[in-house]
């Protein structure tokens, strides 16, 4: 009993740590990569988040690499995919924070705020942040492929937040990205 409580506290602490870290250093902590730095996070010309997630987290590439039976290639593949997956989660989390910040600023001036809709949105935002923190933690511990469904859920939730806020420019970028390949 005390052991499981200690495990739960450790996990909660780790998630909290990731949440804080995520808030302090969003999206760009691999700053050495010049080509990536030149491109802004979530620029308009992106694949829809859920599609990008399923490409990153798909087990198809891992299975292909495993066919080579080269442990060096497998290690390299896992390290590379872990980096991309972590970057994607941090980017999603950062973008969601930006969208909510913009929304808060706009809603201060809005005369007809719906408490129900705002509560639902806040809950979705909290859920997304929690999922992002858990994803980051799980990617580091278990690797990116144990999390395909969780990642798709993050992508779908992020898209839903974008759909709920068509008046926020940053959120409409999510929609336009989705429409590009729709």
């Amino acid at each position, binding site marked *: 009993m005390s052991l499981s409580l200690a495990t739960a506290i450790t996990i909660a602490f780790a998630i909290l740590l990731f949440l804080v870290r995520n808030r302090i250093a969003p999206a760009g902590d691999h700053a050495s990569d010049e080509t990536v730095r030149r*491109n802004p996070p979530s*620029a308009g010309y992106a*694949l829809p988040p859920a599609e990008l997630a399923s490409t990153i987290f798909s087990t198809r590439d891992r299975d292909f690499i495993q066919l080579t039976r080269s442990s060096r290639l497998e290690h390299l593949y896992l390290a*590379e995919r872990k980096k991309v997956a972590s970057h994607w989660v941090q980017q999603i989390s950062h973008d969601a924070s930006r969208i909510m910040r913009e929304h808060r600023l706009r809603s201060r001036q809005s005369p007809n705020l719906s408490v129900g809709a705002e509560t639902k949105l806040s809950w979705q935002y909290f859920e997304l942040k929690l999922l992002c923190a858990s994803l980051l933690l799980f990617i580091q511990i278990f690797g990116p492929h144990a999390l395909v469904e969780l990642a798709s859920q993050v992508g779908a939730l992020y898209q839903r937040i974008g759909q709920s806020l068509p008046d926020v420019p940053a959120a409409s970028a999510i929609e336009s990205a989705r429409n590009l390949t729709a």
Partner: protein
Amino acid sequence: MADPVQLGPMQSARDDLERRTLSGICCDLARLIYLASTRDYNSGTYHHEGLAARFGPEQAREALQSTHRNIFRRLVALPLEELVTELEAYVNMSHEAPEGLIHAWRELEPYRVAVPMEMDSTMVRLFLSNIKLALEVLEFRQKQSQECQPASSLQPLLGR
């Protein structure tokens, strides 16, 4: 195919680019590199004389840019296995020795220049990472085939 007269000028320029130029290039990776080569390094703007003469410089620029982005998106969405096939086709098309090309690409990373501007940073990261992995897979295959060659070249001797 749609009538070019009824299409918008940009769409017509894009169709023309695909029909006259890109269809003659063997794979999407080579098309991406070709389109990146039509972009000025200093200004980031695209130039294509033939296309500009037919549709005007602005339409030509937009057609090149949007086609470049579309091909990049296609390549990012490809499974690694298919990207390796793309890279293999590109190596064959280049007429360079595969070992030399793989070495140069790993050292100089010229594929970074092929990334269109203003793309999503995760897509860029995934593309660069996948190209790096595809190069490793290709080199691995090269080494394996070289290891197999001496054994297979003995076959005719053993058969005598």
